[in-house]
């Protein structure tokens, strides 16, 4: 953890290599602001690391579920997740985009059935990962600005 400019944490999760400027969106996607009231959250933005500028998010005393974490791949495809126990990185992995994105992104088509009052969650099918292209399962329209459509 020496490469990090901010204080190491004892236990919890460090999300590293977030695309610069997206740290707050990452928190929003993970719902961290509401669900993690008892955790100390540190955010570092525009940190110069070995591989260029990045954002970092640290969540103390919480190990974030990998499934949850994959959501952030939508806006920070290069992010890595470090699970920390007693100052040691015990697990480290890269985020990956799931095949289907359910309940995270809103369809931009106002006439799509998923934007009505129907009892369904939004659902997108991943067409390609690099570059990231996703298509609404219902109306089949491709999402253009994914970050701005995150629920």
């Amino acid at each position: 953890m020496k490469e990090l400019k901010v204080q190491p944490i004892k236990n919890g999760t460090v999300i590293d290599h977030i695309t610069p400027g997206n740290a707050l969106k990452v928190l929003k996607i993970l719902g961290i602001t509401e669900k993690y009231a008892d955790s100390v959250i540190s955010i570092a933005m525009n940190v110069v690391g070995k591989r260029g500028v990045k954002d970092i998010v640290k969540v103390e005393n919480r190990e974030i579920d990998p499934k949850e974490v994959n959501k952030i791949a939508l806006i920070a495809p290069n992010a890595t997740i470090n699970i920390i126990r007693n100052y040691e990185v015990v697990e480290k992995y890269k985020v990956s985009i799931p095949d289907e994105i359910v309940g995270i992104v809103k369809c931009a088509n106002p006439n799509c059935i998923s934007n009505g009052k129907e009892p369904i969650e939004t659902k997108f099918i991943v067409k390609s990962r690099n570059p990231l292209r996703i298509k609404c399962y219902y109306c089949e329209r491709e999402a253009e600005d994914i970050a701005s459509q995150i629920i």
Partner: protein
Amino acid sequence: MKFEGRDVISIRDFSKEEILHILDVAEEMIPIAKGEKKSSLLNGYIMASLFFEPSTRTRLSFEAAMKRLGGGVIGFAQPGTTSMQKGETLADTIRTAESYCDVIVMRHPQEGSARMAAQFASVPVINGGDGAGHHPTQCLLDLFTIRREKGNIEGNTVALLGDLKYGRTVHSLAYALALFGVDMIFISPKELQMPKEVVEECREMGANIEVKNRIEDLGNVDVLYVTRIQRERFPDPGEYKKVAGSYRIDMDILKKAKEDMIIMHPLPRVDEISPEVDETKNAVYFKQTFNGVPVRMALLALVLGVVK
């Protein structure tokens, strides 16, 4: 190839072989569709016809198809007469309808509505048009018409003319024709051009594609597929008139075309085909309308598992 219990939401859900099988079954249905032969194939089956949006051809031909095969029809053509008016969701309407029928045919103004309905219904759902989304039975009857009139789908050059930008049914048709390796010419005003991704996808599938803004030479065209240029797409009515007028098919244009070129149109038409063309042997759009019946009969019989 299994059709029993299947939903028909988009033409893309079907392989080339499956499409050809549907057309083969439709061929056998023709005498029944014409009323020359009586059938009780779907005797005891009920089709729910749920039309949340106006339709002439799709609804009438589906209902005719079901009745010609001896089946029953329930449903509505105006959502104002249903509990949707009281705020009921489409999901609940579908769950109600499915308990009264064996197959649902639906037209709804919102894109993706048919896909969602299929999620909630245990009986097959056939999409009769979902907003600007899909209209797979139109696509199938178009392919059926080309095959009947030209003997084959492959080997033809098809020109698609008119509003190619907004009509998703034209996009589905282009995809289906590309599946058969058909060469295509896309003719439209610049503002209403075929979306780039559709052109690219058809090319990737191996079809030769030409993109044009004007009707120039139709000399090598076997099938001319005309669509309506929608007035509402133009903010200036004067601009609409100018554009629409330059895409009108008349006898002068026909003189320069192949003698056996067929002219198709999904209808309704406004001004894009001159009425004098109706009397020529090139005009097949009313036959195309009839073809909706055998094609929809074939689909009903297949998804209900009565025909394999």
